[in-house]
């Protein structure tokens, strides 16, 4: 008699992160894999938690701006916009028109830089050896120079203030932006030609990590993630804030909600942002950049406000509870990365390990924004 031994197979746990090249920061996911198939994902977050919401309670309304640069460090202007909008709502400050336009221009440029970062890094996630990244970063750098000229900072701008912006832009600002935009368009065209029709890029991203419109809404996804699933929800369109109701632009939406759609939506959004910037430059009025009667110390009445902007990643909201005085009693940040990341498990299970990387890349998380 020959004794037959059955080979036993076991699922293995793979610890991806917090030190891993494609987790985009200190994110850790424990993958349970059966061969190459992912059968379970357990995300671990919190490595970047700095208690920013609590810290903001001890800062007055102007000091709190600095913290907004440090949550989503790729869309600093947009975060400052949300925070300033909340404070303005609370203290009933009127923002001069010129300041609104400057904010819109900088926010949309910021959206372009953020999406460029996504496109570059997404290429690396799919295994392109840095080429997309270098091209995206070259274009990003041109816009980054403008931000530096405007705010004097490379990363933590701190340029918006409740009521406007801290100082006026340099004299050649309009001309500089007009110079850079054609370059950005060319760069986007290059990236488009490198990636969008690339056989392998499409094969890797099409049909991967699809999430239906219902699921996307249920998980609280916002931004390009939601729009890729076919839901035309954009705060710039649906709850127009600032001066967004004065521009013509299109909201790109996807059809299947897969990784490829998310990429396409983001790529198209950069073109739309360029359109908005061009229109805003046309309409940019002269005038003050801060309200004339701005108190030296900003005091807010009692109350609760919520203000949200369409960040590059989704709805970035600030909820402030005030009990009077110059500091918020409680400040809560509704960060898009956190909500978008929550759907990771749904999207990843059943896919391959390589897809898990692509899906995580397509969420376009910023870990500082997830953990705050």
């Amino acid at each position, binding site marked *: 008699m020959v004794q037959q031994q059955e080979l036993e197979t076991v699922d293995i746990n793979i610890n991806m992160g917090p030190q891993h090249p*494609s987790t985009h920061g200190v994110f850790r996911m424990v993958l349970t894999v059966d061969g190459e198939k992912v059968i379970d994902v357990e995300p671990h977050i919190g490595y970047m938690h700095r208690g920013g919401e609590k810290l903001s309670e001890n800062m007055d309304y102007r000091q709190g701006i600095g913290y907004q640069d440090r949550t989503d460090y790729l869309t600093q202007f947009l975060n400052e916009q949300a925070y300033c909008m909340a404070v303005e709502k609370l203290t009933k400050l009127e923002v001069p028109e010129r300041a609104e336009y400057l904010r819109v221009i900088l926010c949309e440029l910021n959206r372009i830089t953020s999406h460029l970062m996504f496109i570059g890094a997404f290429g690396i996630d799919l295994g*392109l050896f840095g080429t997309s990244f*270098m091209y995206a970063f070259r274009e990003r750098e041109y816009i980054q120079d403008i931000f530096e000229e405007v705010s004097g900072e490379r990363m933590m701008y701190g340029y918006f203030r409740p009521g406007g912006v801290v100082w006026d832009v340099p004299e050649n600002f309009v001309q500089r932006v007009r110079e850079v935009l054609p370059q950005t368009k060319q760069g986007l065209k290059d990236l488009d030609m490198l990636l969008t029709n690339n056989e392998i890029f499409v094969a890797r991203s099409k049909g991967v990590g699809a999430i239906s419109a219902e699921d996307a809404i249920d998980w609280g996804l916002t931004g390009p993630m939601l729009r890729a699933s*076919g839901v035309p929800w954009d705060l710039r369109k649906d709850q127009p804030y600032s001066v967004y109701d004065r521009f013509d632009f299109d909201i790109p939406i996807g059809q299947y909600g897969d990784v490829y759609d998310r990429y396409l939506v983001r790529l198209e959004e950069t073109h739309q942002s360029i359109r908005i910037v061009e229109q805003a430059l046309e309409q940019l009025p002269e005038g003050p950049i801060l309200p004339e009667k701005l108190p030296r110390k900003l005091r807010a009445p009692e109350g609760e406000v919520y203000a949200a902007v369409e960040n590059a990643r989704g709805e970035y909201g600030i909820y402030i509870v005030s009990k009077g005085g110059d500091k918020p009693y409680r400040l809560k940040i509704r960060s898009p990365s956190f909500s978008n990341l929550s759907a990771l498990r749904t999207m990843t299970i059943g896919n391959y390990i390589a897809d898990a990387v692509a899906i995580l890349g397509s969420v376009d998380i910023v870990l500082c924004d997830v953990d705050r």
Partner: protein
Amino acid sequence: MSMPSAGINIENAWLDAFVGVIVIVGLMTVVVMALIYIERKVAARMQNRLGPMRVGPHGTLQSLADALKLIGKEDLRPATADRWIFELAPFAVFVPTFLAFIAIPFTQNLAISFLDLGLFYVVAVTGLSFLGFLLAGWASDNKYALLGGMRAAAQLISYEVPLVLSLLAVSMVAGSLALHEIVEFQGRVPLVVWQPLAFFIFIAAVLAELERQPFDIPTAESEVVGGPFIEYSGIRWSMFFLASYASLFIYSLLGAIVFLGGWNWPLGAEAGLWLQLIWTFAKTSLLILLFIWIRFSFPRLRIDQLMSYCWKVLIPLSFLQIFLNGLVLVYGWPHIFLLLTSGAGLALAGYIIARVGQTEPRKVRLIPVRGGRKATASLTAPEGAEGGSSA
């Protein structure tokens, strides 16, 4: 055909072997260092960078500096690793690659050894290197390494089949398995003209064998972080590295000899030794540049796509190529039929890859927002969207 005499002829067999080893290792080390430098420079040029610029003029000595650094590094071994397998695995990759070098002729009269079964020997020997990746992946006691090792084994064994079949198709036409005779056959027309489909299969399979983009799945940096090499450092890691660039050189050389006419086309066999050498290396460089170009312009395939590409596309096509060759050769039709049938096969391959792969790009739908409009729409499902227009 008469056997040409080998370039190195020393009476004492041991001394002969020793000189051969010195030549191979010395030449390969220099070639690999040059290749690394060239690849970094070409990649930099493709990516708007300068590449290495610091060590030596235009960074020419960067590879040397890196090699010295790697030799000086500590040779780490994880405490839980399988000691002997872990330490021997680099040799299992390193040795087959260098063994292949023995049979490859550079010119009419220059080779370590002219083998009658040269082509067979080269593919047989290089096919062994997957064992090293598997051993390294297993012995490292690391899950990434294990995954990478398994991927390497699956990939290299699968792609060995179309590689061998494409070379078989070529040797059918040339009527020989000896590399120098295959080159002699290409005196007037290189074999790539008669066998474009086989050349395409060869390039695809070689990319997979070399584990370069788009087939760098075993060592995928963004997934398994280096795969089998993850626990290696210092000199052992550099042996893997050396072997990978040595195989790049050897496969390119093989492609240049088998498909591009080696030293023979278009100058003919009468050209001098140096001219032949230059011509062989020029063709090799062309293939190397092609591989570098591909590496920096394509993302990575997924493991299941890789396997289905091999078994469903490349292997049937290579059988088709062999069948067509058999048809033409048995009935003694003129060689132009080889070109016609193989070209049709290549067109078929292009059609299959483009159409069957479901990879036609999509476009997004654009929802226009017009200035002055105060929208109050609420969250709606896509069918509820109004004012949508196709892009």
